[in-house]
């Protein structure tokens, strides 16, 4: 018997001991961050950066595969008892000695997760983690000249890059409403003092929104630089246009944060993505009925919202609970009761 076979045999025996639970259900009680566990992390500290931004220090579980500077990680945080998933850029360097990673979060108005992380996250709390991902990263070969163009919390992936890899010639143009809103301001100014960075701060409250044409004046050789830009869509759109106009679009790398903005309406186009059917729905008919009328095989039960026999993943869009009026937006892992939910705008049901 090979050791692998022996191990799997032992595991099967252990499963017989713990059935109907799994051995991991018990191991999670004592060691939730162990190797082989579902990937989790533990919040170890939360450091304020500005009035509305904070850096969260996370000890990832043993299964963490490490990240590349500029990447982001999806985290699942329980806010008011509900698990919500969001993506945040990693701001720590890849070679941090203690193996911790940091994300830096800016509280956005009405943002459930961001406000929770900035204002009320407690050290010691377990969170869910995905492996880091994203292709907003530095190339293998070092470019001679670098430009970072950022605005607001768009600085976070770039900070991960700045802390991770040193270049000979780096320029950064960063936009924020006021000086005190610049995240990592002290650290940036230290880099400037050490001559590791040339920095231009654009304070939009006084200077107005950055006109991309001003780059010629702020960074005369911008077109020769390998550029990484991250910030609001307006800035990135302008940058892409500008780089394309000058025929150097291959030097520009952009990262867009996509906040899921769903405008909840009443009724909309419903897509049943597994069957490939699309139908129009009003805002008062249960999605179960809509699906059945369209010939989609829908799981069903009591048809009055009590048995949970009809729950189905909501892949995109929003639905309204016909009993309470409550709006539910699509997020990974969100299931809805189709018998008491109606379309609140276009939505996609996994059926």
């Amino acid at each position, binding site marked *: 018997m090979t050791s692998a076979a022996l191990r799997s045999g032992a595991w099967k025996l252990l499963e017989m*001991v713990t059935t109907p*639970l799994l051995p991991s259900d018990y191991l999670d009680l004592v060691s939730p961050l162990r190797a082989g566990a579902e990937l989790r992390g533990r919040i170890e500290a939360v450091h304020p950066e500005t009035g509305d931004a904070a850096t969260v220090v996370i000890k990832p579980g043993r299964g963490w595969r490490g990240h590349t500077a500029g990447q982001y990680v999806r985290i699942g945080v*329980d806010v008011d*008892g509900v698990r919500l998933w969001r993506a945040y850029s990693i701001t720590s360097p890849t070679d941090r000695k203690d193996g911790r990673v940091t994300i830096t979060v800016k509280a956005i108005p009405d943002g459930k997760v961001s406000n929770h992380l900035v204002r009320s996250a407690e050290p010691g709390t377990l969170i869910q983690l995905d492996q880091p991902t994203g292709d907003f990263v530095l190339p293998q070969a070092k470019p001679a000249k670098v430009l970072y163009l950022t605005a607001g919390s768009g600085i976070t992936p770039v900070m991960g890059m700045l802390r991770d890899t040193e270049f000979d010639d780096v320029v950064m143009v960063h936009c924020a409403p006021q000086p005190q809103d610049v995240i990592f301001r002290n650290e940036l100014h230290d880099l400037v003092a050490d001559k590791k960075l040339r920095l231009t701060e654009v304070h939009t409250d006084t200077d107005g929104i950055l006109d991309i044409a001003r780059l010629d004046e702020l960074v005369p050789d911008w077109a020769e630089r390998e550029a990484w830009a991250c910030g609001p869509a307006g800035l990135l759109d302008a940058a892409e246009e500008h780089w394309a106009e000058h025929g150097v679009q291959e030097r520009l790398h952009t990262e867009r944060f996509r906040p899921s903005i769903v405008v909840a309406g009443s009724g909309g186009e419903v897509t049943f993505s597994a069957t490939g059917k699309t139908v129009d729905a009003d805002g008062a008919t249960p999605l179960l009925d809509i699906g059945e009328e369209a010939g989609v095989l829908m799981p069903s039960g009591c048809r009055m919202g*009590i*048995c949970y026999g009809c729950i189905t993943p909501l892949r995109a869009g929003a639905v309204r609970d016909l009993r309470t009026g409550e709006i539910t937006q699509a997020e990974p892992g*969100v299931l809805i009761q189709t018998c008491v939910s109606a379309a609140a705008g276009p939505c996609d049901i996994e059926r």
Partner: protein
Amino acid sequence: MTAIDPTAHLTAEQIEELGHELDAIRDEVIASRGEKDAAYIRKVISAQRKLELVSRGVLLFSIFPPAWLIGTAGLSVAKIMDNMEIGHNVLHGQWDWMRDPKVHSTTWEWDHVSPSEQWKHSHNELHHTYTNVIGKDNDLGYGIMRVDEDQKWHPFHLGQPLWNFINACFFEYGIAAYDLELGKNLHKRRRKNPEFRARAKAVGRKIRKQVIKDYVIHPLLSGPSFLTTLAATFTANLVRNIWSHSVIMCGHFPEGVQVFERRSIKGETRGQWYLRQMMGSANISGSRAMHFMTGNLSHQIEHHLFPDLPSNRYAEVAVKVRALFEKYELEYVTGPLPKQVFSAWRKVFRLSLPNRTPKVKTPDREQELVAA
């Protein structure tokens, strides 16, 4: 179907108003569900796992009588917690709102021989939708007992006190057979139905796993304590079965609980549905520990009104529900566990015999008023 309908004094408008008032109670809890509730269920789950782990650990030395006693008591409680406050309620979707895939009605499996998927269908869907409707809700006597005067008597019913006792001892198997609709499906033609066969196979798999765990693996792990551990696990299962059977009997069987005719639910409004749940369920009064050990099914009335609200909130909901019972002059059937169990058992005995008085035809309104 008592001769006098205890809800006859309510007008259609009042019944709808009652429905709105109950909806408001539900909305209030939903709006205030949060971190404290999530912490509660996680704490209960973690406590259950630790208790089971420790009890099974102690039973490795069950050859020593004190270890046997402690281990058996601990395991009994752990199994009751698993089935009642955790399993039953998680499988109702009471905790789905947390969006934690590990505490979710679609992924939960319990220490029970009925696979959760099948139980959800027969319990959540059939029993909770058609509560106490004769011919639709098989929980009324589980298809083996006569629990209402209006059910036809058959000589088979003479043995029902015995059937009920056996069912209590092996309750989890009774439930599995019930979820499978075994009686109905044992006919030759139905036995071959592939859908039934698949479900029967799933039950077989679940039984095998549970039995091997309780009666082979853990006794074997105990070495010299093999036999005593075997006896301990058997005892714990017996205690759990009798306990849950007793609690569940108290939910719908005690005197004062109404049953309904199939035709009475045709075109039922939301208000009428609520009213049927109110009149078809009974509570158990007692301490917080009692509520916990019954999985809050001691608040059966509240649970039937709002089967998907988190169980830890039923106690506060009960105060408001009871006020509505008073407002609408309805009887809130409740009592301590021994009284309710006795009442349910007495009914089982009484109805094992044919009706003593010849059944009068349902009286018309005038007769009712005279009787009142």
